[in-house]
């Protein structure tokens, strides 16, 4: 495919879309799917056929549309007589509602009077969608639709107008940092791999996403897989790799399906494969399905897993950029990181860097969960304050309860108390208050949440997900969890709290990988801001939030199942 052929496809598709009066995007991501959105979609398709509207209406499945709690969501873009497109977003759509929707809106042309979400609501209006801009717009299963919306144009630009060094310079200028958690500068990582010597290099997309409550990466893959593939291909060109892998967890069947479809379509049009855009650049992408162990998100464990070995981390150095998959220089980035790349190349690094804060550029996708009025997926500029995210966008705490804390960064993160609500959310600020950006899970807690219990929950997660290779993490998380359990059962003493802190320091300092090093963070941050709650459990044998009931721990005392599965 060359530029003209691409342009031809785009024009044909745009012309086709002009003939459609309505484009109907049904959210078929996990949240809405659990509310029956697949049946809603089927009902819509059937309804459209029965009403003989197939030439005027296109119905497609998309990734998460954001406000999961109001699912199943259906978005209808209707073309007005003047060519203007008018958007309606229907909430809580059932099969019955779908039939109505076809009859009234799609056939009749008049939007349903009720059941629509106000699109000027801050939940939608305050977002800034870069990574998610294709969700609901691009049909993830039709490459033409994606091309018409701009897919692969950045790849074409990179291959035909920029040298690999130019691409890296743009990425560096954009200030883009890794969205997988640590926030490592992407440009620096690319340039390290670019400079590494080796006959072959590899690009890996980390789509393991194991944080409890997180589904940002999954949504991007489900809603706009080509954006990620395009980012990977640009990365491959920049660092000098001809092979890429997407490592995606097996629990994401829809993401896997859509990736497979996307790969096949992109290869057929030679947007991936050999001599892409008739240049000398070759790039293939293969899928690798992980079994879903949290630790396999750690780079060196991920590499071991792709190599077909047991997914356990190894000490670094050597870093994957120098010696990664099969000893080759390897670039590993997160899904959301790759999803930002096309935008950087399209508008230039400087334009990208205009959004965000001094040291954190661009936007970040968060998965809002917990005690918050609007749970779902939002994308906001870096530096948006926690208050804006929780109260303006998320609609605040339901039932008139008081905000207590927001947990970010998953099991390696911490709890941010109310006094820091005006904190601009970026990499540095979060670390300053003892938390962590992580991949973007944001769990809101109100006065009915017990912080000791929260700490115990995350410690249990780390205990269960520890790979078992190194002693501090394997044996230490067990001890820490059992100490926390003693506290929640009102059987702990101040000596136990001291021992908890001592173990926290040990794990942080001596664990081999980020899992063990980060595991103490929820404990340390809750101790930092909510020590009085710990003390109430110890001294007064009382849970201020009323969560812990003080029943005796089960006989196993938190010892994980001793079973062995080969």
């Amino acid at each position, binding site marked *: 495919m060359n530029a003209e052929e691409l342009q031809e496809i785009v024009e044909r598709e745009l012309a086709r879309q002009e003939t459609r009066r309505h484009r109907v995007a049904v959210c078929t991501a996990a949240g809405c799917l659990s509310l029956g959105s697949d049946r809603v979609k089927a009902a819509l398709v059937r309804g459209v056929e029965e009403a003989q509207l197939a030439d005027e209406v296109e119905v497609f499945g998309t990734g998460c549309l954001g406000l999961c709690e109001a699912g199943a969501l259906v978005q209808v873009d209707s073309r007005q007589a003047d060519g203007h497109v008018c958007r309606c977003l229907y909430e809580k759509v059932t099969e019955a509602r779908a039939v109505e929707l076809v009859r009234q809106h799609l056939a009749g042309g008049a939007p349903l009077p009720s059941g629509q979400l106000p699109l000027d609501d801050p939940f939608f209006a305050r977002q800034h969608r870069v990574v998610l801009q294709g969700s609901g717009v691009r049909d993830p299963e039709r490459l033409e639709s994606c091309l018409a919306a701009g897919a692969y144009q950045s790849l074409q630009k990179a291959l035909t107008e920029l040298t690999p060094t130019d691409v890296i310079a743009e990425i560096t200028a954009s200030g883009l940092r890794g969205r997988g958690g640590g926030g490592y500068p992407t440009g620096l990582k690319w340039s390290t791999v670019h400079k590494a010597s080796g006959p072959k290099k590899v690009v890996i997309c980390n789509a393991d996403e194991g944080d409890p409550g997180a589904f940002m990466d999954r949504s991007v893959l489900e809603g706009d897989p080509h954006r990620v593939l395009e980012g990977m291909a640009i990365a491959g060109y920049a660092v000098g790799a001809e092979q890429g892998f997407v490592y995606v967890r097996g629990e994401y069947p829809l993401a896997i399906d859509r990736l497979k479809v996307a790969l096949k379509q992109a290869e057929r049009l030679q947007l991936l494969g050999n001599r892409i855009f008739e240049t000398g650049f070759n790039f293939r992408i293969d899928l690798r399905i992980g079994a879903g*162990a949290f*630790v396999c998100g750690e780079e060196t464990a991920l590499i071991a897993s792709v190599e077909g070995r*047991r997914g356990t981390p*190894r*000490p670094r*150095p050597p870093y994957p950029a120098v010696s990664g998959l099969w000893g080759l220089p390897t670039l590993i980035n997160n899904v959301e990181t790759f999803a930002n790349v096309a935008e950087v190349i399209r508008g230039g690094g400087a334009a990208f860097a205009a959004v965000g804060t001094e040291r954190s550029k661009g936007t970040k996708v968060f998965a809002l969960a917990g005690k918050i009025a609007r749970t779902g997926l939002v994308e906001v500029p870096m530096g948006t304050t926690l208050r804006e995210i929780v109260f303006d966008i998320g609609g605040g705490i339901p039932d008139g309860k008081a905000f207590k804390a927001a947990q970010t960064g998953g099991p390696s993160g911490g709890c941010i108390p109310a006094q820091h609500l005006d904190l601009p959310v970026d990499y540095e600020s979060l670390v300053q208050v003892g938390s962590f950006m992580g991949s973007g899970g944001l769990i809101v807690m109100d006065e009915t949440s017990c912080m000791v219990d929260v700490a115990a929950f995350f410690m249990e997660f780390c*205990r*269960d*997900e*520890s*790979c*078992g*290779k*190194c*002693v*501090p993490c*394997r*044996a*230490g*998380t*067990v*001890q820490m969890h*059992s100490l926390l359990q003693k506290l929640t059962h009102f059987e702990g003493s101040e000596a136990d709290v001291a*021992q908890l802190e*001592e*173990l926290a320091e*040990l794990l942080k*300092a*001596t*664990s*081999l990988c980020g899992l063990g090093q980060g595991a103490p963070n929820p404990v340390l941050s809750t101790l930092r801001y909510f020590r009085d709650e710990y003390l109430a459990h110890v001294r007064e044998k009382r849970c201020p939030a009323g969560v812990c009931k003080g029943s005796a721990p089960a006989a196993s*005392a938190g*010892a*994980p*199942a*001793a*079973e*062995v*599965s*080969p």
Partner: protein
Amino acid sequence: MTVKTLTLDGKPVSAREDETILDLCREHKVPLPTLCHLEGLGAVGACRLCLVEVKGSPRLHPACTLRAEEGMEITTGSDRLKRYRRQIVELLFAERNHVCAICVVNGRCELQDVAYAVGLDHVRYQYRHPPTELDASHPRFMLDQGRCVLCTRCVRVCDELEGAHTWDVAGRGAASRVITDLNQPWGKSESCTSCGKCVQVCPTGALFEKIQPAGGTVKRRDFLTYLKTAREKKQWIR
């Protein structure tokens, strides 16, 4: 081969570029406890006992996998490191069932040696006493999971030197267990050649020869250096 100069606990030392900090410590008689490392096997950096401080780095680094570099300043025995080492050994004792008095390697156990080295006189963490299994199906050897510290020396020697790869680790976290073949009894293993290497390299009483009574097992590690030199340098010397 270029030679690097660096300081080890303040003393200037020189190193070949293929040497690790642990090699230097051994060479200069700097005491550094280790458990997962064994000369002759690939290093994994898993037990975390050999962690050292490197000036200018916020992280601690395992000496067994850390290559010597020009100008490095290494500290091996700060108070902090000593405290961590003791905690790690305590965690190991609390993790499974170490009842030395009735153990086949009592008095000749590397875990015991390490415990003495770090000054361990009691364990402050809760003993977990997990139910563990004993595999006595092999005609000559036994495996007592209760004494295993998951150093994976058996896994590595069987894979790297014997080439049988009978051992592996299954499960994760505290439920990790060494297994033979696909978690079949050792005695049924078709890959095991009964060479006994795993038994010799095991630092604890987890792997032992059947005939030996409590406190009777003596392990011989020198064969490993012999095999390694024989292989790599084609010299058949001990």
